[in-house]
């Protein structure tokens, strides 16, 4: 390989590395509040998703939703979304509550934490960047966890729903 060719490979390698960084970037600046790409930034980030997983237990979301399977509250790992599946819809639901028992968490958690929760909730149905998803759950399980492919397939309940979700993901910029 000639020298110029090798040199041109360098930036390419650097770019490849950079592309992989997004999933793990930890933004401690607290400056994300007004970013229009907030949904994508939270949903595609492994650190935000795992923070959301922690908050999910801490705020006792599991008390009603179980670990995604639902109970007193609706399941979160299937393809049905009563109030929209996009990042902003889920964060809005968390912050403002919904009729039928979903409490409003505005003032109980910060807005960033609500978005982290939303990122985690969407990741339960593998509705997020694949490389940002955790390979395993935080809580101990007594059944074998579903492989990623199975989790992703849970989306397609009806073709219409699937299309609607794809559409809303596109708006959020966090294509499945």
């Amino acid at each position, binding site marked *: 390989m000639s020298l110029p060719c090798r040199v041109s490979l360098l930036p390419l390698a650097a770019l490849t590395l950079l592309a992989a960084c997004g999933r793990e970037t930890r933004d401690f600046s607290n400056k994300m509040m007004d970013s229009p790409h907030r949904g994508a930034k939270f949903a595609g980030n492994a650190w935000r998703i795992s923070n959301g997983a922690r908050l999910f237990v801490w705020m006792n979301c599991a008390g009603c939703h179980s670990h995604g399977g639902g109970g007193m509250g609706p399941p979160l790992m299937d393809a049905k979304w009563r109030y929209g599946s996009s990042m902003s819809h889920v964060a809005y639901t968390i912050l403002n509550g919904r009729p039928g028992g979903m409490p409003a968490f505005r*003032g109980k*958690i*910060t807005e*960033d934490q609500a978005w982290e929760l939303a990122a985690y909730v969407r990741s339960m149905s593998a509705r997020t960047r694949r490389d940002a998803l955790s390979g395993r759950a935080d809580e101990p399980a007594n059944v074998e966890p579903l492989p990623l492919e199975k989790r992703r397939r849970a989306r397609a309940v009806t073709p219409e729903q699937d299309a609607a979700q794809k559409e809303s993901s596109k708006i959020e910029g966090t294509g499945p």
Partner: protein
Amino acid sequence: MRRGAVLLVMALGGCSALYGPQSSAMGQGMESAHIGNLFDLFLWVTVPIYLGVMVFLALAMRRRQAMVQGAARPEQEAGWRLGLVLFAVTSALILFGLSVATWFTDRAIARAGAGPALSVEVIGHQWWWEVRYHDPVAGRELRTANELVIPAGATVKVSLSSPDVIHSLWIPNLAGKQDLIPGRTSDVVLKVPKPGEFRAQCAEFCGLQHAQMALPVSVRAPGGFAKWYNAGLATPPVPGGGPEFAGYSLFTGRQCASCHNIAGTPASGQVAPDLTHFGSRTTIASGALPNTAASLERWIADPQRVKPGTQMPQVPLSPEERAAVVAYLESLK
């Protein structure tokens, strides 16, 4: 000249490390006393052996010279067989004796945990320490965070667990390292004859802020410990007015109360450090900052700047509101 100065500073640093609140060289605990005795025994047995070996080596070298000059070979000398047998038997006896001493030391350390006077649970979180004191009377259970206070002279059993990742409790002056492993309970027994102030540190890499996960350990005279314990059980009064009351209202009404607990107030979160007697602690955020009003203000204003990655979020508060919360928390003696 400069090198001399550097060496001097290093030597002084070494000395302070030897005598400081976080040093494994000057063990003050029961466990280290046992191991210290064993070490002394090994030292005084092995030093004469070492010197003896050196003497025999020197003799052998002299004999070798004599042999070159035509003296008899060792096998032809009288008593060499007896010498070898004596050597083997003595070595075996000494090794056996040291093994017995080790076994007794090990048993003594293991026995010490039986029938503890005090049972404490230490839970390692990312990145702080939760401390629970168990008491047979339900109302006398005490929960605190980022401080471990124990009575001098008593056997204290510390149970260790972790809800997130592997941590390790290391109080170098008092005991060896012991890991905190999610899903299981390990323990360490402390028995410290004299009061003192020490510092523990997480000794197993546990994430971004592993280095800022310290635990001040205070060993107090039994009377002082009982006083601290009873003060800890008391519910702090709700402030009557002023900035403290404004801070109380903000703390119990805002995000703080979702995670932190202050006994006797609506703030009853159980996932972050218990702040019931926060004002009496020496450090903030597990040793990250000294507990002063200025550093508390800094911590609340932007926790991520002080301890990047901490689970404590930046709660939106105006500077006046922040000052009120600081005044309230510092009043919780």
